[in-house]
């Protein structure tokens, strides 16, 4: 691993001070960054540890909003009573991710910035990867693409965004408060990650000196009737083959509004508005749910080894809708 300097910030101003002086990368839980440093993929010369900053590890439950501090751990958020009750999709997206150990370490903001599991990206320089080495090509395009994107890919990159939490957040129209040297701004989580396009090494719209401070999730009528349905290669401790985050507002069995986001199949958290629209005003039964699943995957562009995810994803969306509907206070 390349040597780096390590600084510990105790305030947000402290982070910016270190960053402006050194260009330091922010270190929080470290479960992604340190892992990729061990692989030689991330090679920062300076790190600034932000985990000693007070006040960023709280969850606040307001009437219409849940606010998560950036440094809340995944396990704390997953176990929080308000989260479990008001937005199970969020709790499930966290508790079905990684392992208890990693969830105790990883922070909510850091988790949003998790990087792809594409094996060509994670392995050594013998494999072309535009994300790891811009301009080197993409080995996955004609390679083993079982784990690669059906949505949002480009000729430069089809690496899947691997996270779960961001997918659930995208479904609920969550936003993030971001602080940088130019002050504070608010972004929609759904717009936080970029499509790979010709620049797959640029993964988010964050500036290098920006840090996520809060994650805000509107929870009003939507939230309670929600679920995160994750299909994996093993029962636990695995990334999603396909996942569906759904939230419903039902009125006497009729869908007033539906939110559906897909994980494991796209280059970023993937909302499917067409499928949401297809459900609006419909009576939610198995047939309608399956139809929504089909609409969700209508624009999928599978590769050589991931075509099964169209059928699997269709079923996962349908199952998720039925599970969420069961949780509706007014079925």
């Amino acid at each position, binding site marked *: 691993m390349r040597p780096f300097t390590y600084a510990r910030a105790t305030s947000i101003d402290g982070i910016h001070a270190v960053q402006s002086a050194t260009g330091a990368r922010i270190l929080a839980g470290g479960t992604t960054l340190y892992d990729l440093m061990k692989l030689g993929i991330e090679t920062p010369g300076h790190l600034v540890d932000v985990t000693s900053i007070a006040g960023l590890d709280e969850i606040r439950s307001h009437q219409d909003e849940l606010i998560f501090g950036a440094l809340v751990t995944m396990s704390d958020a997953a176990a929080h009573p308000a989260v479990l009750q008001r937005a199970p999709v969020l709790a499930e997206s966290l508790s079905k991710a990684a392992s208890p150990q990693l969830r105790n370490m990883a922070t909510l903001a850091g988790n949003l910035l998790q990087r792809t599991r594409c094996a060509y990206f994670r*392995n050594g320089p013998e494999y072309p990867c535009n994300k790891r080495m811009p301009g080197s090509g993409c080995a996955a395009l004609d390679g083993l693409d*079982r784990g690669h994107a059906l949505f949002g890919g480009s000729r430069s990159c089809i690496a899947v965004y691997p996270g779960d939490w961001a997918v659930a957040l995208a479904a609920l129209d969550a936003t993030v408060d971001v602080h940088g040297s130019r002050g504070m701004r608010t972004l929609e989580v759904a717009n936080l990650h970029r499509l790979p396009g010709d620049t797959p090494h640029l993964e988010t719209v964050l500036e290098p000196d920006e840090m996520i401070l809060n994650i805000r999730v509107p929870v009003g009528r939507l939230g309670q009737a929600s679920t995160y349905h994750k299909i994996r290669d093993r*029962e*636990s401790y*695995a990334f999603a*083959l396909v996942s569906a985050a759904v939230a419903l507002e039902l009125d006497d069995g009729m869908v007033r509004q539906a939110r559906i986001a897909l994980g494991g199949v796209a280059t970023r958290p993937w909302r499917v508005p067409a499928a949401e629209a297809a459900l609006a005003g419909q009576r939610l039964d198995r047939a309608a749910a399956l139809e929504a699943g089909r609409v969700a995957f209508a624009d999928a562009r599978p590769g050589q080894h991931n075509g099964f995810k169209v059928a699997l994803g269709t079923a996962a969306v349908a199952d998720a809708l039925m599970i969420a509907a069961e949780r509706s206070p007014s079925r």
Partner: protein
Amino acid sequence: MNQTIYPDRARVDARDKVRGVTRFAADMPMQRVAHAMTVPSRIVRGRLAAVDIDAARAVDGVLAVLTWRDFKGVKSAGYLMGGGFGFQSHQPMLSDRLVHRGEPIALVVAETLEIAIEAAALVEASYEEEQFAALLGDTRAEVLAPQPGHDMGDAQAVLASATFRVDAEYLSPAQFQNPMEMIATVAEWRDGTLTIHEGTQNSGALKFGMAAALGLDPARVRVESAYLGGGFGQKNSLQGQTVLAARAAMLLGRPVKLVMPRAQLFHTASFRPASRHRIRLGADADGRIVAASYDADMQNSRPDTFRASFSEITARLYAIPNYTSTARLVRTDVQSPGYMRAPFEHPAAFAFESAVDELAYAAGRDPLAFRLANDAETDPVTGHPFSSRFLAECLRDGAERFGWSRRDPAPGSMRAADGTLIGWGVAAGAYKAAMAPAIARLRVRADGTTRISLSGHEMGQGIRTAIFAAVTDGLAIDPARVEIVIGDPDAAPQHVTAGSWGTASSVPVVRRAVQAMQARFEEFRDGRPIRGTIHEMLARWRRPYIEVESRLQAPGQPDTVFDRLQRGLPAAAGPEYEPFVSFSYIAHFVEVRVEPTTRHVRVPRIVSVVDCGRIVSPRTAESQVRGGVVWGIGAALRETAEIDPRFGGVLNNDFAEYVVPVNADIGAIEVGFIDRPDPLLNEAGVKGLGEVAMVGVAAAIGNAIFHATGRRLRELPIRIEHLF
């Protein structure tokens, strides 16, 4: 015959293990230890044109950067299956020749691990690349002429006229042992003696292999391997890394520790090769299997010949009078494949026991009844008797425990209330009952201690517990002060512990030693009255100790096998002995549940009943069976190497992507033992257990999935996409 019924007792090394005080190789406290890290080759095959080590050497704290030029005079220790000691004949870093992806091209040694890793990343190399074949089906692979296997009767003619027929091909992927302990070597060079600490199943091969590789007198090579963090076949021979670490230690005059990163282990150690199995079966109108033919292809490396023996068990599972088999080896550009738990028997049983299930359905028979009706009474291959065979009992007992009689045979007919598809499947397995020569030295001392030294390696199978059971059975010694010395070639000659011959070799030789001790004790006693333990009597007689040595080889083995044992060479025998044949047997009954929408497969329960002769250590034996079943679940539903043929090498080279079962994958596993001693194989009545436990699990799962869904899946692992 062994009439002892061994009591349930705790694993003898469990107390240390739960306290974390058991020292594995990388845990050994060591003064001034230097840390090493390898630099892996980035190509599959070709020549190392240049290595630039300047940047690495310039890092503060780097002690040395070794390349092949630093290995002049070092030789390959040869291939284990070719008269040598290594997992492959190709020893990395002896020349600029590169034969498989990931082989080390440089070794960095530094004051700390962090510095070694940093510097290793700074080594730059250029290569002259050659074309290669990565996969079994690659056009550049070299397909060798078929090796003839078994040939009884006239299989082809009888197949042609059989009433019911199956002709199908089954695929098994490359898989990796992945013991939790990454292979770790600590090498010390002091006063002309080399000491290797490494978790190995074959400390004898390490001793003699290191001597051969480095040109040392074997007497100056010590190996310590008291505990392994799992082996599963991957640690059954000399590793390339051991030579690298030892050379560095000798050049630097400091202990060197090399813990191979898991990602590199997918390329620097052995694996289960990919294989393809074409099975043809025929049955008559009465539901008797009348003919079988079995043609297999198996991946190999270029330099070494790892022979396939898939048919060894399938020729014996049933009384099939007309049987033929062949195996073709296919040379590809990989490190040499080798033994991984049930190396041939697992893929063979998946193929054959799936085909038998298909045949049972074709013949309209219940799969269990079909198997029972075709049971063999004598060995179809040799015509000799089986030393013991309780496969039918395993099947009947398992069926009873499982509730097989409640099974509706029609595929897709059993469903849970929520619509989940339920499938019940059965399969049988067998594994040769092998034995290896062993020498045991037993010393009972007046001070109250007992020391037994013998061949064996503790990789979790519980060999220490079995040895303890045997040494305390019928000997008046203090059981709290028994020292069991294994994995140390200087304490007793060490044979490779593998092939399920560990207990079957060690327990009988220990029983002999106990008998010899009793006899010697009687000599000393000379009719005097016995009061207390042997220790107390020795103290009374003012004798510091009594020591006896016993030796034992497999039935029919000549005494010359002890020469091989003394030289660290493999010398096991089985399953064919004169004039009998010995196998262990198992029957697995599996329930799968398949979600009707996502086709997600779960395995909530398995019943496995084993005939492995006498059970010496009931608790650890049960654990071993459960472990084998977990391996079967992993092999059936999870584990495969993702290899891109354009690049070679394994892409999913970590525990996140090479998915071995986790706790949530495993449901109830009920284990039953026939527990009847084998009357012929050895005086302990013990046959093998570790491998047979896994054999047939994958087929039983595949058969259960067929029963649940009507889909016959013939490629492992069975993954969710195969059910769409």
